[in-house]
């Protein structure tokens, strides 16, 4: 079953989406900040990373930069999932190879799931 690392600093969102994905049969590893999340990615080598941008201790874009620099994990597909709508951040995330960019309030859980399936299916 596909393995997903989910980095999100808002515990409630993490629980809700995490539980939803677990119920869909994914193996979810959650982290509350950038540093712990990056460590989880290095440890777990997931099939997908769900990444929030505004994170304590390491911004999501920096996590993304670090991942792309590390040969071991550079190929892991990333979906950026955030409530920020700054075009700079979107551009930078796309430059760094994010497969999709979701604004949380604009997506239902089912729609998030569809995106995840889509990205996992493309691999």
């Amino acid at each position, binding site marked *: 079953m596909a393995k997903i690392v989910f980095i999100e600093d808002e515990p*409630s969102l993490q*629980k*809700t989406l995490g*539980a*939803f994905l*677990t119920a869909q049969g994914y193996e979810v590893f959650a982290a509350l900040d950038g540093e712990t999340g990056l460590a989880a990615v290095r440890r777990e080598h997931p099939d997908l990373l769900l990444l929030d941008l505004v994170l304590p*201790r390491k911004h999501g874009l920096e996590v993304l930069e670090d991942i792309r620099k590390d040969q071991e994990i550079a190929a892991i597909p990333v979906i950026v999932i955030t409530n920020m709508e700054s075009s700079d951040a979107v551009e930078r995330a796309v430059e760094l190879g994010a497969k999709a960019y979701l604004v*949380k*309030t604009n997506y239902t859980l089912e729609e998030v799931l569809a995106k995840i399936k889509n990205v996992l299916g493309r691999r």
Partner: protein
Amino acid sequence: MREFFERMNVIGECRRSRLELWSCPPFLFVVMGLINVAAMISSYLLASRYVEEPEAAALVVIAVALAIFLIGNSIIHGFTQIVEADRMKSEFVAIVSHQLRSPLSIFKWSLDAMADKAGGPSGSGGGISHPEILRENAEKMIQLVNVLLEVSRIESGRAAFRREPVRIDELTKEVVRFSASYAHASAVALDFTAPVGLAAVRGDSEKIKMVIQNLVDNAVRYSRRGGRVAVGIAPAGAMIEWWISDTGVGIPKNQQKFIFQKFFRLSGPLDRQTEGSGLGLYIARSIVTALGGEIGFSSAEDKGSTFWFRLPVYGA
């Protein structure tokens, strides 16, 4: 017609835009106009009386030109202030919208998950209590809105403060207990040992709690994993001093003087990593000073910060 007269009331207009008279463009324009008129009349009088001394009239004209130049400068400065305030407000609206989005997306997803659960086999399971999550986040949203209202009350001078005996050691215990899980999740040690037999301060317990909560949140938020935050309280003459020290990122020297300003947030390597509204310290300072206390901090970049406040002992 009425509008025209209302516009003529420049002093009222300056008050409404919260500008000092001497940096308020509408008022300064009127002053400039009056100076102009006075200057013309006096040059006419001077010129007609001292026909043989044109230098006198020339001097008046130069003095007037200088005065107008100076006032013009103040006018431009006034406009810059207005533009800056406007920019900060827009930025603030963006920040607040982003912050409100967070609980809103939680509402949306929790409701999705509940509907999904009710709907059948796909189920979102996980044994989490969605009503609990919804309640928590409704609370968060209420708090954020309260902060905004507090700012608007402070701004308009309508904030009311009680003057009751307040045990800040008890308040601190409450806040530390409340923040323990957040500190734990951030791998930051949060220590507080309450001193014995501490006197009560004079103030408003709700508001002081807001100050303490704010300073504790900041200290944990700006700490690195494995960091340490220590809170202490001690009598200091007729005041009681409360402080909090962290081993966090510290505040760069060039930003220290802005730290209590409204909407200010640390910029630099950390600016994108925190979600503060830029109002916490502004509110904290407004509350502490309104209660007759003092607030301050010392900080070294990469070493950490200590924030403190003092409030008068009740009955002292």
